[in-house]
């Protein structure tokens, strides 16, 4: 089968196209996603292909976008809405927390909607276009949270997210949109939500991570191995909620040392949840304390020099791994 070089944003567009083609109840809306194709061009060409009836622009109104999607989802449609940046979703997060996340528990009526949200830093987006908010979404009952790191996973998980009967937050790392490429076949199957993936085997430590940090961790693991300090497993969580706890615990059992890496804030970050899980369930397996490498608790800075210092990367992950392996 011929393979095509595919970026993350291409893969997301492929996932959306497949959903629009195969599922008449799917529709896409958001700010500037129609003819313009979205701020990151994830929806480029889809309005032309599927019509302005199914792929359309809205006013700037995140709460009405979420609210309308909730209403549509309760009436048999599968809306997929795009936040231009995840940062902007916080003006309207109450619709997800209070309406989408409680609907099935309260009424027994499902809300099959997906929120696509570009997030993360690395592009000098500054404080309001770089936020990494997965911990907020994971904290809310009734939502699922997906965060792919590779193009193949992105399109396959997006299909599963959209076909899930629950509200799903689908996080897209905007640095990865065009920085990560894979040669992919035209034919592919969905990947179930809730399954982590070992993307590098290793025996001496595991990096538990997701999103852009998967790629930084892979580079760091390579270097650490070249340093002769040990072999490092990288576990890409892929879905944060429901979390693949079996995979996390198996990785810790296999390596006995765990480094958690994310580019979101430290306090109350998703890493705290992972650390707690390992402490509660795998304390007896650890040869060293669990370590977290995260962004500091501060606004995301603008200047590239500051942002580089703010955001974990291959160098800081390598240093953390060397410390962990030496413990």
């Amino acid at each position, binding site marked *: 089968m011929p393979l095509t070089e595919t970026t993350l944003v291409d893969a997301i567009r492929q996932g959306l196209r497949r959903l629009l083609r195969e599922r008449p109840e799917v529709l896409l809306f958001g700010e500037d996603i129609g003819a313009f194709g979205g701020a990151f061009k994830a929806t480029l060409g889809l309005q032309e292909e599927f019509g302005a009836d199914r792929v359309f622009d809205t006013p700037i109104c995140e*709460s*009405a976008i979420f609210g309308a999607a909730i209403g549509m989802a309760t009436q048999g449609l599968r809306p997929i809405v795009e936040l231009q940046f995840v940062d902007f979703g916080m003006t309207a997060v109450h619709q997800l927390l209070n309406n989408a996340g409680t609907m099935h528990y309260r009424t027994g009526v499902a809300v099959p909607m997906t929120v696509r949200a570009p997030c993360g830093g690395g592009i000098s987006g500054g404080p309001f276009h770089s936020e990494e908010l997965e911990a907020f979404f994971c904290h809310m009952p009734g939502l699922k949270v997906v965060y792919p790191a590779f193009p193949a996973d992105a399109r396959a998980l997006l299909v599963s997210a959209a076909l899930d009967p629950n509200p799903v937050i689908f996080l897209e790392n905007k640095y990865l949109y065009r920085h990560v490429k894979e040669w992919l076949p035209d034919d592919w199957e969905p990947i179930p939500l809730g399954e982590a993936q070992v993307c590098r085997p290793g025996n001496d430590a595991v990096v538990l991570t997701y999103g852009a940090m998967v790629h930084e961790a892979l580079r760091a693991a390579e270097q650490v191995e070249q340093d002769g300090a040990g072999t490092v497993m990288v576990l890409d969580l892929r879905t944060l909620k429901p979390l693949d706890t079996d995979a996390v615990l198996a990785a810790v059992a296999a390596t006995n040392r765990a480094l958690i890496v994310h580019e979101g804030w430290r306090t109350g970050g998703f890493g705290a949840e992972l650390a707690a899980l390992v402490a509660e369930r795998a304390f007896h397996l650890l040869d060293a304390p669990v370590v977290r490498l995260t962004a500091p608790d501060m606004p995301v800075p603008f200047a590239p020099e500051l942002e580089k210092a703010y955001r974990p990367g291959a160098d800081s992950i390598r240093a953390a791994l060397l410390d962990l392996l030496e413990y």
Partner: protein
Amino acid sequence: MTRKPAKARTTPAPRRRPGDDPQHGRALLRCRLLTRLTEDRLVRLYHQGRISGGVYTSRGQEAIGAATAAAGGPDDLYAPLIRDMTVHIGRGEPVLDIFRHYLGRVTGPMKGRDGNVHYGCLARGVYPMISHLGAMLPVVTGAVLARRRQGRPTVGFAYLGDGATSTGDFHEAVNFAAVFDAPVIFVIENNQFAYSTPTARQFRCANLADRAAGYGIEGLAADGNEALDLFQLTRGLVERLRARPRPVLLVCDTMRMRGHGEHDDFAYVPRDLLARYAARDPLDLARARLSAAGALTAAAAARLEQECLAEVDAACQQALAEPPPDPATLTEGVYAAD
């Protein structure tokens, strides 16, 4: 502090008006009466400690829900708010289910997973409200747009109070509905107070209906205590929106005759204001109008009240005897299964 004596205001002599249909009038009266008797019983259960949380009544505002619920067809959608029990009853919610719900029974429409004013039945097209004011407005707008896409001629009714007009969700939803020509009637129940805050601290405009112009839509003002007039107005409006879909702001003037909830003594409400609206009680107005039209004798009115009371008694007794939810089911249903 002395209060000015309540200004006596007499109800204008009711006359039979063109378009009055005694059958409609009696149905609207029954809906309001059933609501008032149900709420009175809920208040009693609350003060007896048999209902947890709170009880928030619609006393004084019953006409709005009764009229607008009756104006819609079977395919129309509703998102009632706090003081809209007449919408629920008007759209077919059994009084028994309301008692079950307030008592947190597993047999109720929310199975004890939510309480008091938060209930509804999506199968009947009635969305259960959440507490965040304005939050249901975009939801019902989206739901109506979904129905229209499916070829159904649905019109939506989305309810809010004067207070919710200050929220961002109100603005976003009305603007969204306007841009997409969503046939939604935004029913603003101006009951003069949002909890303890009077309208003067809520907005500066002379009439909330004027806000419609800013959204490029039609705005109407109506007397929220005259059910039959409001019914005729909204029934016509529904037909117009079905033919030419677009949102409308409908501002209904009324008065919240109790506190925000039964825990609230509403000492902050001027007594003369209450007296003015007490003279225009929506149930009294309905009885007088029907009676003047020769459509309701004193005996028939008494019989209607007895029937409604018997229904309330039976529902209350049955719901009290039914079981609460099993704590073992605590987390069931947080997620929908594939």
